[in-house]
């Protein structure tokens, strides 16, 4: 009972026309059986309503708006009717059907799933890193109000950012805009007693935990009375230490533990997962034990800048206002203490910036790169799906003719792409689970907050969103496009498909061209970063890279020794180690080179005019035993190295670096000159070549090596790090060294046995991670793009089968036939390369901050990157092109 076709609406209201057009479009979604009736009803209702409103005197514009609004409601009606038959059983049927049809085409299915798994996996892994490091909030109360107080010389932004404790406490007292200020400084104590254990620790102001706004997991934190001269020694310990060493014993609070052979009262336990602000470095370890200063701030060295400052902004105050206040306080302090404070400024920086600021841009660049890989993967999957839909065109037409509504067909095709996306996404997430650990490992100490990096709920939401997005893009969109084309094709079947195929093939070639261009960019970027990594490894550090083993010598054995006895014990150990086969030399030092730890101790040359106020300089001062300079492979420029005769009773001696000589005795030989360091006097007996103490990316710092025996409390009377050099085999001699140390004193714990090269590796963690990840991404992109090229060329051969058949029939050689197809591949490749090189020239600028010793526009890398992609792409074109030569003209012409 269909009505006659509706009379044309006589009114020419464009809004009504728009509404009617919209409904007509919408009706295409409906099953054929229902379409006419549905359209007639909506037409009649909209026209009647429009007439009615005009008859009642409504303004034409308003009437038009009204019908447009009502027409929008037709979407729900149409969707209801389209999905009317779409019950759960149908859905399950669709899924079962699609799984069956996917199983029948394992090549297509496996390729699509693997491509998506790689794309989604790489993105998920990197997003977990971005989420953990950059997006996850710090576990403090109002973390955005916590700032770091960066100390530096006016006009110099670089350097250690350390501040002096007295200055910090003066700021705390005088700057009203700061709710509180705390200092922290590294402390590496040993839990002494039955099982000596060396810990990362920190000395912190009593209200340090209040500044961060965290609550104790047990007991309490420090009170004001716990800080200052004569305070009872007390510690707060980490949750991990509490559970691991003390079995989470609640009675530990109020008891004492032996730290460095002194009794410390345990006050409380930091919350589980407490993240310190990472301003002091223990090669990535977080402090496990905290104590308070044992001195009065006012009496402490104002020139001793070994503290980091953190503060919490007062309620309702902005950072700029507080900054002005702090600067004013610093100007007053400069007048009061010109010698220490002239030229010193303090800048407030959000703590988040201090911790993650340096990694942010690098992570975003990597994230952008991995996003490009996903795009390339998506193009491949889209091409696979389009190809498959064209193949199934006839099947779909038949099913449509047999009464399957377009809605049903779309649902079926979508179920197929959904199945692939879900499986691909699931595998991708597994891949990410597996690779996040590797990423964190590669990063060394470069990535802050490694413990915050995990595949968590947000990461899963992210991956699910990507998977869903790809399913819609590759299933729904091509399916809808195909069905639109299907109406055409139904009329004259093969010609229709041909037209559709030609359009799809043009789109496909354009997409593959884009893939090649993107791959060129990624390959060049990877080339630049790999070159950077190589350059860094080639930098002359001033110390030996290979054949050097280091180990920490810790334990209770040192604490009650007189300096002479301690020196003798070190001498026994070092002689014993040096006597091992393959060992050339051995020594010990308090801070190993390449372990990131600034000290900046004040140095006052004695035979120079006293420095102008504010001109006092500091150097990196180390305590070292004889043999260490040789074992580290440093070059002695003049004088002598440290020897055992530089003992506790002898006159103070030191070996300095060339840079230290130029700094403290400019223009003259430093040999024999004297300087005051740590309130003692030392004379220069030797000069060594400069050492890049903080890794290849750091600046040259002035270095001073004091005899450990003459500096007992920094040197010989505590655990130092052992350095052993010799044949390459030395790097694996940890067991022998442990035995030697044990034979001298069984109570010494030999910990962290590792080659010096691993410390170097940690300092280049950032460049190494960036180079590795980009190389992996470029490799993925290249593989996927080549798959894309093979696909598009295979299709080209199929498409031109007839033409090539005719040509061969007319006498063209197989070589000419191959050349025809190969030419098409070459054109795509050439355009892709040109586009890629242009894009690379623009985009590598983003890498400016991450390259070292190579220009972002390095011609050699650009050309070799392009050549690599070009060669492989031509090979990938040639493989399918060969098939053109084998086309049998009879077969080709008989088809159709």
């Amino acid at each position, binding site marked *: 009972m269909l009505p006659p076709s*509706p009379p044309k609406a006589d009114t020419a209201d464009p809004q009504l026309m728009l509404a009617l057009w919209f409904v007509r479009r919408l009706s295409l979604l409906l099953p054929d059986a229902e379409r006419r009736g549905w359209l007639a009803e909506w*037409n*009649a209702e909209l026209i009647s309503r429009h*007439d009615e409103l005009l008859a009642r005197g409504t303004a034409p514009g308003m009437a038009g708006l009204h019908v447009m609004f*009502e027409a929008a409601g037709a979407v729900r009606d149409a969707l209801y009717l389209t999905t009317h038959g779409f019950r759960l059983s149908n859905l399950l049927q669709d899924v079962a059907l699609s799984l069956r049809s996917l199983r029948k085409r394992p090549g297509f299915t496996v390729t699509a799933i693997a491509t998506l798994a790689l794309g989604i996996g790489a993105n998920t892994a990197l997003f977990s890193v971005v989420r953990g490091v950059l997006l996850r909030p710090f576990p403090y109360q109002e973390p955005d109000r916590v700032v770091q107080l960066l100390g530096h010389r006016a006009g110099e932004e670089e350097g250690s950012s350390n501040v002096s404790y007295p200055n910090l406490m003066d700021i705390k007292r005088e700057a009203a805009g700061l709710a509180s200020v705390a200092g922290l400084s590294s402390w590496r104590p040993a839990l002494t007693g039955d099982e000596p254990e060396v810990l990362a620790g920190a000395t912190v102001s009593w209200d340090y935990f209040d500044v961060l706004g965290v609550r104790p997991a047990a007991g309490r934190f420090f009170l004001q009375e716990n800080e200052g001269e004569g305070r009872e020694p007390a510690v707060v310990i980490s949750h991990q230490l509490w559970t691991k060493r003390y079995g989470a014993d609640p009675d530990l609070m109020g008891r004492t533990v032996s730290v460095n052979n002194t009794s410390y009262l345990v006050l409380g336990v930091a919350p589980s997962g407490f993240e310190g602000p990472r301003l002091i470095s223990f090669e990535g370890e977080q402090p496990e034990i905290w104590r308070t200063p044992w001195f009065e701030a006012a009496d402490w060295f104002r020139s001793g800048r070994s503290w980091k400052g953190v503060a919490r902004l007062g309620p309702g105050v902005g950072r700029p206002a507080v900054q002005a206040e702090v600067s004013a306080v610093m100007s007053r302090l400069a007048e009061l203490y010109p010698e220490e404070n002239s030229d010193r400024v303090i800048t407030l920086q959000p703590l988040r910036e201090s911790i993650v600021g340096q990694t942010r841009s690098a992570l975003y660049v990597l994230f952008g790169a991995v996003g490009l890989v996903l795009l390339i993967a998506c193009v491949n999957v889209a091409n696979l799906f389009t190809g498959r839909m064209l193949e199934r065109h006839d099947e779909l037409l038949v099913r449509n003719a047999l009464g399957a509504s377009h809605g049903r067909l779309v649902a079926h095709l979508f179920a197929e792409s959904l199945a692939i996306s879900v499986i691909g996404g699931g595998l991708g997430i597994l891949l990410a689970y597996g690779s996040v650990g590797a990423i964190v490992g590669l990063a060394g100490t470069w990535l802050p907050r490694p413990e915050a990096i995990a595949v968590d709920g947000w990461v899963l939401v992210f991956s699910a969103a990507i998977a869903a997005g790809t399913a819609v893009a590759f299933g729904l969109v091509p399916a809808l496009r195909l069905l639109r084309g299907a109406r055409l094709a139904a009329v004259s079947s093969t010609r229709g498909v041909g037209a559709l195929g030609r359009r799809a093939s043009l789109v496909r070639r354009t997409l593959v061209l884009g893939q090649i261009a993107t791959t060129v960019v990624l390959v060049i970027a990877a080339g630049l970063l790999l070159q950077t990594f190589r350059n860094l490894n080639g930098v002359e550090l001033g110390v030996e890279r290979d054949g050097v083993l280091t180990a920490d010598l810790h334990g209770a054995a040192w604490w009650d020794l007189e300096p002479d006895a301690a020196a003798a014990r070190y001498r026994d150990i070092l002689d014993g180690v040096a006597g091992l086969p393959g060992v050339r030399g051995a020594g010990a030092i308090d801070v190993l080179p390449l372990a990131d730890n600034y000290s900046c101790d004040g140095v006052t040359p004695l035979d120079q005019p006293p420095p102008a106020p504010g001109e006092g300089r500091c150097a990196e001062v180390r305590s070292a035993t004889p043999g260490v300079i040789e074992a580290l492979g440093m070059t002695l420029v003049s004088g002598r190295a440290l020897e055992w005769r530089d003992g506790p009773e002898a006159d103070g001696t030191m070996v300095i670096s060339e840079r230290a000589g130029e700094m403290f005795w400019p223009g003259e030989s430093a040999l024999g000159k004297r300087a005051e360091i740590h309130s003692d006097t030392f004379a220069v007996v030797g000069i060594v070549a400069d050492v890049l103490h903080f890794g290849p990316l750091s600046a040259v710092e002035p270095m001073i090596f004091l005899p450990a025996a003459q500096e007992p409390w920094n040197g010989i009377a505590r655990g130092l790090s052992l350095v052993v050099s010799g044949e390459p085999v030395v790097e694996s001699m940890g067991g022998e060294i442990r035995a030697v140390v044990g034979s001298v004193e069984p109570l010494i714990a030999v910990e962290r046995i590792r080659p010096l090269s691993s410390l170097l590796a940690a300092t280049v963690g950032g460049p190494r991670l960036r180079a590795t990840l980009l190389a992996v991404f470029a490799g993925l992109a290249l593989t996927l793009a080549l798959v894309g090229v093979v696909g598009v060329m295979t299709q080209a051969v199929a498409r031109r089968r007839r033409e090539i058949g005719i040509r061969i029939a007319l006498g063209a050689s197989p070589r000419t036939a191959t050349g025809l197809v190969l030419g098409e591949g070459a054109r795509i490749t050439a355009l892709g390369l040109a586009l890629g090189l242009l894009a690379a020239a623009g985009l590598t600028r983003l890498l400016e901050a991450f390259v070292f010793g190579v220009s972002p526009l390095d011609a050699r890398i650009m050309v070799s990157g392009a050549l690599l992609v070009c060669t492989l792409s031509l090979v990938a074109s040639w493989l399918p092109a060969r098939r053109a030569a084998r086309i049998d003209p009879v077969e080709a012409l008989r088809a159709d």
Partner: protein
Amino acid sequence: MASGQRMTLPTALMLSAIAEGARYGFDIMDATGLPSGTVYPALRRLESRDCLRSRWEAAGVALSAGRPRRRVYEITKAGDALLPAARAKLAALPGLSGGRVLRPSEG
């Protein structure tokens, strides 16, 4: 509509509006105050469950009004059986007790 099924408020409103004389889809929208996106799917559902039936209005009616033929909805016996429940549901609502916002029908 199976007796065990819960009747939604839009369904109740629509059944009682149709029983009181609303005939076309857009009339039912006016009578119930519901938007087209709610009314039409509900009409399809009620019709598929035989609570309503629809037919095209007579050509003469459309011709005299100068518009295309509209689809007319009528309540069936099965629909009638649901009316008491629909009215009871509406009566239970404060401020809607039987008093209708129905426009005078042009039926």
